């Protein structure tokens, strides 16, 4: 089953482009003053998008919706038909989920004839990384639980079955499965809250989030958690099935990689592999460490050393690829959070070197939290 799952996961993952859909152009352009009333507003994004809710909301000078029906997507283009309206300034709000499952939103205005005061209910300030602040917090929380669940579920089980050969850490795997099953619904709410906190539980928003590539990734993640639960139950009858646990973990890491930040600097499969390697190494280290605290064996030091090495190497490569120039580490939110992450990684490595395992685990949990924020933010490149 492991091989089947691995092959299926590879075949099924959506093709990710770069990271977070950004608006790269529109017709009418942002801030433009056009002479005639346009029939259609068209938005062009940096990658293929799925509209969430209406997708585009155009408000007329009177502050009312000035469109007929929701927006329609065609690849990276999103278009909406306008109803005839008065002269003045129109406000446009767009809400989408990108091919790589990241939500984003934004707004701009254009004017017909002449500018006028804007009466539309705009997004206002306070957005971080193209989403609402509360949405970003929920996204980060969901990812944190997901990563922790991944590490405990697959990492601790792999440690128990292959390193310690002791069933006790398998209890951690059940905790990991529970974390994964909590994290995924939270991730769904984070999507809708990112687009519009007031519409978090709106069924139309939830529907469009589920219909987007995010919905498929969500299903595959829940599938991985359920399969792990099924396999754990079957181990007594078929010990050889233990091989499917690291295989399933790898498949989930690949699914996660498609929902992480691919980089335009590398061919896509390479970027996916790098992301998956990073997540897998994290799971082996943190899950193994948690398992070690339950059932310590001497072999763990070597496993931890190797996975930490891979984690740092793949992390460094990903970081380098996400910045166009060193200055961006100072000027972007993404860069700032990365700096914080590095500050937490240092003590974790020191504690690992001194083999202070309990503190090492606490430090790594903090690193995981910064990583969860980082994946929720749009990288500079």
């Amino acid at each position, binding site marked *: 089953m492991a091989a089947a799952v691995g092959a299926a996961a590879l075949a099924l993952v959506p093709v990710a482009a770069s990271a977070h859909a950004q608006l790269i152009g529109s017709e009418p352009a942002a801030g433009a003053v056009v002479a005639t009333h346009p029939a259609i507003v068209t938005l062009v994004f940096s990658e293929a998008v799925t509209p969430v809710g209406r997708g585009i909301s155009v408000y007329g000078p009177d502050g009312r919706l000035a469109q007929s029906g929701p927006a329609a997507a065609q690849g990276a283009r999103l278009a909406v038909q306008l109803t005839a309206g008065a002269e003045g300034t129109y406000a446009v709000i767009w809400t989408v989920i990108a091919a790589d499952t990241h939500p984003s939103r934004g707004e701009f205005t254009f004017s017909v004839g002449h500018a006028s005061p804007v009466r539309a209910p705009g997004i206002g300030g306070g957005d971080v990384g193209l989403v609402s602040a509360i949405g970003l917090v929920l996204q980060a929380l969901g990812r944190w639980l997901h990563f922790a669940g991944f590490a405990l579920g697959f990492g601790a089980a792999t440690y128990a079955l292959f390193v310690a050969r002791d069933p006790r850490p398998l209890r951690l795997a059940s905790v990991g499965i529970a974390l994964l099953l909590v994290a995924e619904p939270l991730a769904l709410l984070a999507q809708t809250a990112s687009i519009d906190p007031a519409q978090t539980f709106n069924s139309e928003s939830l529907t469009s989030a589920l*219909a987007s590539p995010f919905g498929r990734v969500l299903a595959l993640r829940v599938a991985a958690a359920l399969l792990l*639960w099924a396999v754990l*139950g079957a181990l007594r009858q078929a010990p050889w099935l233990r091989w499917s646990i690291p295989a399933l973990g790898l498949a989930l890491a690949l699914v996660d990689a498609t929902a992480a930040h691919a980089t335009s600097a590398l061919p896509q499969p390479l970027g996916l592999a790098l992301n998956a390697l990073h997540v897998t190494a994290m799971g082996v280290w943190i899950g193994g460490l948690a398992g070690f605290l339950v059932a310590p064996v001497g072999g763990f030091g070597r496993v931890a050393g190797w996975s930490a090495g891979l984690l740092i190497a793949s992390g460094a490569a990903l970081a380098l690829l996400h910045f166009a120039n060193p200055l961006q580490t100072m000027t972007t939110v993404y860069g700032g959070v990365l700096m914080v992450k590095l500050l937490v990684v240092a003590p974790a490595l020191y504690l690992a070197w001194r083999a202070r395992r309990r503190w090492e685990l606490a430090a790594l949990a903090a690193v995981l939290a910064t990583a969860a924020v980082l994946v929720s933010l749009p990288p500079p490149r």
Partner: protein
Amino acid sequence: MKRLHYAWVVAGITWFTLLGAAGFRSTPGVLIVPLQHEFGWSRATISIAVSINLMLFGLFAPFAGGLMERFGVRRVVVGALLTVSAGSGLTIFMHQPWQLDLLWGVVVGIGTGSMATVLAAIVANRWFVQRRGLVLGALTAAGATGQLIFLPALAWLAVNMGWRTAALVVAGAALLGIPLVALFMRDRPADVGLRAYGATEADEPAPPLRNPVRAALGGLSMGMRNRNFWLLAGSFFICGASTNGLIGTHLIPASIDHGMPEVTAASLLAFIGIFDVAGTMISGWLTDRVDSRWLLFWYYGLRGLSLLFLPYAFGMQYFGLFLFIVFYGLDWVATVPPTVALTADTFGRRNLGVVYGWIFASHQLGAAGAAFAAGAVRTYFGDYQLAFMTSGLLCLLAAGLVIRISRARGSEAVVVAPLPAASY
């Protein structure tokens, strides 16, 4: 000289009975459009009768098990055939929707429900010790195939000769079955002075005669106190939801949604039926040899993965869909033989009929629930993706459930959970 063991005669009669019962049950599907044309009833109105029919087909199963214990298999099957014949024959006089609900829904539902999978379980377990799984597989396959092979003929009759002819043909076929069953069906091997096929010791004695309703309810309360019952009923609920409910009802409209002609879409289901015969027979054969929990683990696990694959298969044109059909067809009711075997292991063969009846009722509840829910999802979301993926995830859950069933010896289980009605 070695004569043919009478168990095979009983199995053959049962096979034809199940084939017919499945065909009778599926007839309302063919009648929907003709009835709509003649009486102007809406599709929703007619669907109520189909829903009642489907629900009773399942919910009557435990009571049928109780009836067979009390009055014997032969009398119950003869009665059921009479019921179907009457229900089907009387429809030619109807002119109000409630009459359709009563006749096709209630009467035919109860009649066919009395000859459904519970009959297969009881016959296979009473008459066979060796080859029990294989026989059960063959009987179950008859039930699944019967729902498919008569449809073209019935549809042809309804279109060319009118729906009344089709209803009368069903009534006549049920009547023709009565002498066959009355002459050759026997309740127990002891009735013809034999032991069960391959049995080395004498039969379990026939249980004391019980009131069928109390037997059915006693079986339920006995089951509810056993963890294995919940695991079996829960996984079978998911089985019903992911086969009859979701794919059986919604594969055709989903395929049409994706631009496939209706006839092609309908033949997809027919192919599922063909692969299902092979799959269920193989599953029965495997049940005689391999741990049933292990089989169910794989069936549900692979079914879940293929459902998760389905939304992508629609994107891959015919090849992907064909792959899905083969995979899904082999697994369609392959779950029945291992589930029956586990029920017999846990509750003992003498309690199998009623307890399995409830587990099968859970199967039909799942089917009815999913048929409705998937339709609602389609209406509301405009797409089946969520329905397919949710049921795929449910199947993976079922894989985890079945593997946690504990191995129990039947006799112990009976001692631990004595039937309250046993002294009756």
